[in-house]
């Protein structure tokens, strides 16, 4: 488990949360002003043109047949014994334990935080997960429960999951979640702008979100299931990275098609190209529909064989999931004992 970099560590609970009204107002005002300029530049045209920041970055086409074949080949890697143990432990360390339901309550979030810190109460060797991911409303609760621990608080923000609220409101939401104690902000790419060819607007909004997030890490959700082609996934990946995303993320989990292995491979290839051209290592978060331990190590294989060991770390790889952890714990248990435990052994 790695400690968080000092600069990103949350302060004591009492200074964060919803109480500090003065700083909030100041934030909203500045981001709203910036929002106005974002909207102007979006309307100003350059329709279809890519922002200058993307010029010179390799946006190579993607062949869907070849991509899916490669992903299928990687999925067939046979991960056994010690390799399986290493993969499952790493999957726990890279997990964003997520609850994004309208019925989330402080009680639900508190029990999730407890599980995040000690996924397997009977076995302290199982490491904590990377982060707990909640709606902004519940950031304060999670931040309180996780203060002083290595588990980070992630919040969705920016009119999640559609991302089509007024830009000022979106940026305010991001700033709000950050000041409430979120270490990481998961926003969605403006697919409306992206698919309409208003790349400049989509780019500027990500850049403004990055600024609004301040010290928090920014994860940009591409919602790949809505982009229509791997070429678009690759282009959106490059756009988000060039605009300052710390992570690019596959999906919200709120539409039918979520993370798939070929999509993850496509994004990992974009991350590799970006790192070669720009020198900055951007992380990948896969989310939505990942429920089994086997799926989790298939994604780890894709990362290992596409991006290499540097990316096999919670700083650069995350799995967003709500039910995956229990299956990973069952498999870890079996690996140690040689038999499956009762499914009700894991805590809820």
């Amino acid at each position, binding site marked *: 488990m790695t400690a968080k970099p000092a600069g990103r560590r949350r302060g004591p609970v009492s200074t964060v949360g919803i109480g500090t009204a003065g700083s909030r107002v100041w934030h909203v005002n500045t981001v709203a002003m910036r929002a106005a300029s974002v909207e102007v530049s979006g309307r100003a045209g350059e329709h279809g043109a890519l922002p200058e920041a993307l010029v010179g970055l390799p946006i190579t086409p993607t062949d869907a047949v*070849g991509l899916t074949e490669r992903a299928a080949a990687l999925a067939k890697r*046979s991960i056994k014994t010690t390799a399986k143990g290493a993969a499952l432990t790493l999957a726990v360390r890279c997990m964003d334990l997520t609850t994004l339901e309208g019925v989330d309550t402080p009680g639900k979030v508190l029990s999730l935080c407890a599980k995040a810190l000690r996924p397997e109460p009977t076995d302290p060797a199982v490491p904590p997960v990377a982060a707990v991911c909640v709606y902004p409303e519940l950031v304060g609760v999670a931040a309180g429960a996780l203060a002083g621990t290595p588990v980070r608080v992630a919040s969705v923000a920016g009119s999640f999951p559609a991302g089509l609220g007024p830009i000022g409101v979106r940026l305010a939401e991001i700033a709000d979640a950050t000041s409430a104690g979120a270490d990481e902000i998961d926003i969605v790419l403006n697919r409306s702008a992206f698919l309409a060819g208003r790349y400049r607007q989509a780019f500027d909004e990500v850049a403004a979100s990055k600024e609004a997030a301040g010290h928090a890490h920014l994860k940009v959700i591409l919602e790949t299931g809505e982009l229509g082609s791997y070429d678009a996934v690759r282009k959106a990946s490059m756009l988000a990275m060039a605009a300052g995303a710390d992570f690019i993320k596959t999906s919200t989990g709120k539409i039918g098609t979520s993370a798939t292995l070929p999509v993850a491979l496509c994004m990992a290839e974009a991350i590799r190209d970006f790192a070669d051209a720009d020198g900055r290592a951007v992380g990948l978060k896969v989310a939505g529909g990942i429920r089994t331990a086997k799926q989790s190590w298939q994604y780890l294989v894709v990362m290992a064989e596409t991006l290499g060991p540097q990316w096999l770390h919670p700083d650069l790889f995350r799995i967003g999931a709500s039910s995956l952890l229990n299956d990973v714990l069952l498999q870890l248990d079996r690996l140690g004992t040689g*038999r499956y435990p009762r499914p009700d052994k894991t805590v809820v």
Partner: protein
Amino acid sequence: MSDTGEHLPASPAGDVPGAEVPERVLADLPEFGPASYAPAPEGTDLVHIAEDYGLFIGGEMVPARSDRAAPTVNPATGETLATFAVGGAEDVDRAVLAAREAYESHWRDTPGSVRARYLYRVARLLQERSREFAVLETLDGGKPIKESRDVDLPLAAAHFFHHAGWADKLDYAFAGAEAHPVGVVGQVIPWNFPLLMAAWKLAPALAAGNTVVLKPAETTPLTALLLTEVLRDADLPPGVVNIVTGDGTTGAATVAHPGVDKVAFTGSTTVGKEIQRTLAGTGRRLTLELGGKAANIIFEDAALDQVTEGIVGGIYFNQGQVCCAGSRLLVQESVADAVISKLRRRMDTLLVGDPLDKNTDIGAINSAVQLRKITELVESGVRQGAELYQPSCALPERGWFFPPTLFCDVSPSHRIAREEIFGPVLSVLTFRTADEAVEKANNTPYGLSAGIWTEKGSRILWMAERMQAGVVWANTFNRFDPASPFGGYRESGFGREGGRQGLLPYLHLQGAQL
């Protein structure tokens, strides 16, 4: 790949029902990654290998009259797997007679729908026993189990299925013509795809109503010998297929036998030329599928990450021991650096080692002879000034292995750019324009296959028209399908295998207006 059938060693306390489950030991786990994938060997229990094998003649395994035998070796370990008979001229003669007897007494008059039934049975039996065949293929030939499991076996079964479908439709396949079989066919196959090549040869011959004498390669006879069990279980009448194992002399006797009406050979260009000389003027039919030096052509607008996979699949598939391997990489100069950098990085992740391990990407070289040939040509590349790259992968101590190899700064006059290496060795040349790509691609005595990588459809068609190659792949490589005819031009041979065209060499068409 379900994991539910796997049995991990249980901890001692775990064996006692109701005992307290001990804490898992999660310490001392390796860092996850390709370098630390735990061994995942495919089990060999299913496979039974006899100590020695005779010849399959007239539906029975019989001892060779030649009294000669040879060992077949596992190239990954150097251990002898079994001893097989080396058929002599007298054995070939017996096999041809058995084939002739079966042909004339019933097989040529057996309705196509009945022949189809036998072929369907063979196809299904191959599928049922595919794991056993795959393991044996890997043991005998050294190819990675994932290739024998995912490529050789499914394709072999697919060839029988495909041709079973043709058997009762031959009169409709060639409009206005009546299709008749040719007679007794002599077939000599190579060691790189032992069972698959047997399937490529047997399926169309039998579908067309011919009987066969098949001579498997000297270093890989075992899957063809196991196939005799399948043929018997399918109730194929005795003599319809005869399998005479042996060496070059056995093959020479098979193709030269006057009772053989048609010869089909897959192998080296040198031997192919000898066979052509032998058959010249005899009026007996011949098809040859020989060597190659395929160009894999990368244009600057191609999907470069999938190109990288295509290059790797083109040259390192089956350790490069593929007649249609993409051994000459022609890359447009504007993207040459990007492609080579991606390729090198990808080569670093290739897992070389135990062919039986399910994670192995590159297995063993088929024989010591072949390893010597590859080594000698690679040395010549270095001597002639090409720049060598090999990933720093540890090779197994036993067996015959060669690391994936890349040569840059290759000039078209270098031996590695001209001669067929038949190993995991890629030579990179660059081009500036499409015209130059065509000129360089065709600058070889061979003409078997070519690959074109571009996102521009019109360029694919423009290039394909100009490639002097029997098979042209676009945005893929080394893809095979029984419905697609395969074969070469020039020194890569003549005749096609697969599809409707692949039936022609095995048929006399009467009243055809072709």
